């Protein structure tokens, strides 16, 4: 993998730090008038998800990380791995629980997800921004929390729990924003 000079730093560049592939979120140059320039960089570690700040001397080189994002459709879970398929090449990839993480509750068969691969192996799975899932369980009546927030918890077919308005019932399909985990609307079947 190529090395990158600090001159090439910009948001989105993937570099290796602490043995982990990282994504640069923000890069700022701090240059005293009569002194060494430094790059102050905010990075997200792509495996642990941690956001940390690092500092480099301007002009230094850093090892790049072979990280690519691929759009794949979700097939099924065999109990250990989550399987995805490239719709063009029909090539299949399996992601483990660590890579899928919390996204597991938003995986709907046939949905297109973004898989982040490091050296060819999936390290993260990002579901589509919106998914449609059936409610398998929610309180039927209008009782419950009417104090202000409104809504009631509903369990979806994947096990995810979201707050839905009181009028939404078991068996209905709802649209959910996976970034916030919030209910968006009912979906007519």
């Amino acid at each position, binding site marked *: 993998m190529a090395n990158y000079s600090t001159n090439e730093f910009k948001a989105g560049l993937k570099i290796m730090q602490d043995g982990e592939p990282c994504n640069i979120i923000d890069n*700022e*140059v701090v240059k005293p*008038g*009569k*002194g*060494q*320039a430094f790059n102050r960089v905010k990075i997200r570690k792509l495996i642990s998800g941690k956001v940390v700040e*690092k500092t480099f*001397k301007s002009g230094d080189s850093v090892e790049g990380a072979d990280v690519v994002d691929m759009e794949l459709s979700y097939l099924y879970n065999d109990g250990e791995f989550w399987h995805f398929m490239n719709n063009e090449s029909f090539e299949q990839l399996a992601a483990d629980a660590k890579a899928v993480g919390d996204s597991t509750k938003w995986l709907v068969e046939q949905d297109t997800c973004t898989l982040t691969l490091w050296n060819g192996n999936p390290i993260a799975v990002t579901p589509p921004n919106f998914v449609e899932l059936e409610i398998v369980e929610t309180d039927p009546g209008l009782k419950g929390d009417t104090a202000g927030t409104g809504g009631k918890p509903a369990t979806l077919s994947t096990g995810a729990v979201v707050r839905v308005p009181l009028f939404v019932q078991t068996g209905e399909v709802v649209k959910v924003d996976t970034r916030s985990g919030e209910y968006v609307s009912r979906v007519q079947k």
Partner: protein
Amino acid sequence: MQLTDDWQPSASLDVLQQRAALFQTIRSFFQHRCVLEVDTPILGRFGVTDLHLENLETSLSHFPHQRFQLQTSPEYAMKRLLAAHGQSIYQLGKVFRDDEAGRFHNPEFTMLEWYRVGFTMQDLIDEVVCLLHSVLGDLIVQQSTYQALFEKHLNIDPLTISVKDLQARLMYDERIADLVERETDKDTLLQLAMALVIEPQLDKSQITIVHRFPASQAALAQLDVENPRVALRFEVYVGGIELANGYQELTDATQQQVRFEHDNRLRQQFGKSEKPADFRLIDALNSEMPECAGVALGFDRLLMLVTGVSDIRQVLPFGIACA
């Protein structure tokens, strides 16, 4: 930074009007004080030897064997005027540095630089404060030596601390720990501590003057005869921005020659090309260079403080991305 194809200016009309007003304020400030405005060449035969400054180079077809340098500051030419005429002078003009562009940096920027014959460093600090007060209002002024500043914020003596102890002290800050661990140059570590640890802690509502930098960071300042471990160099910070850098100017030609050579040795150590020293500056210092103090102030950064914007592009008609 990405270049843009947009034709629109990067500063608003309102800011451009404030920019023009600031030019006028500064010119009348110096006119009242009988300081002569000069405009020395931007294009010159010599650049600077400073370890951390890079000139932009160009060539002229009329002088095919000579490279020409866009000046990073008008310092050398202004000092030749001082040596020739012995009069206080100021300059408001463009300078160029082959630096990265960022929130506080544009490779081409406007510098206000002035030299006061017969002034001590403290006289000049007082005059800088006076100018800042007339532009920014009556901000509180905090003056500290470099040494006292490090003692206050990091509880270390920057002049005597060993590289090892300095590393150990800075390792606690995890934002810089990796770099500190592999960096063994003391001045680089001190500059790192200053820029990333101390500067962000300076009171943004005040004018902070830091003076008496370590002799190893003297640049073109005289050493303090009472304490030659420090140089009569000062920096001015306002609102979290490094605004100005000044000296009790070195007037000794032999010392100047030594500094040039020292710079070039450092450049070699750091893997940079050596730069020819401007012998005409040496010759000028050898004639009748008056004792003086001088300072360079970033005009665009001052305008950022006046207008309250957070990116230097917003005070430039066209930042480098759309220049």
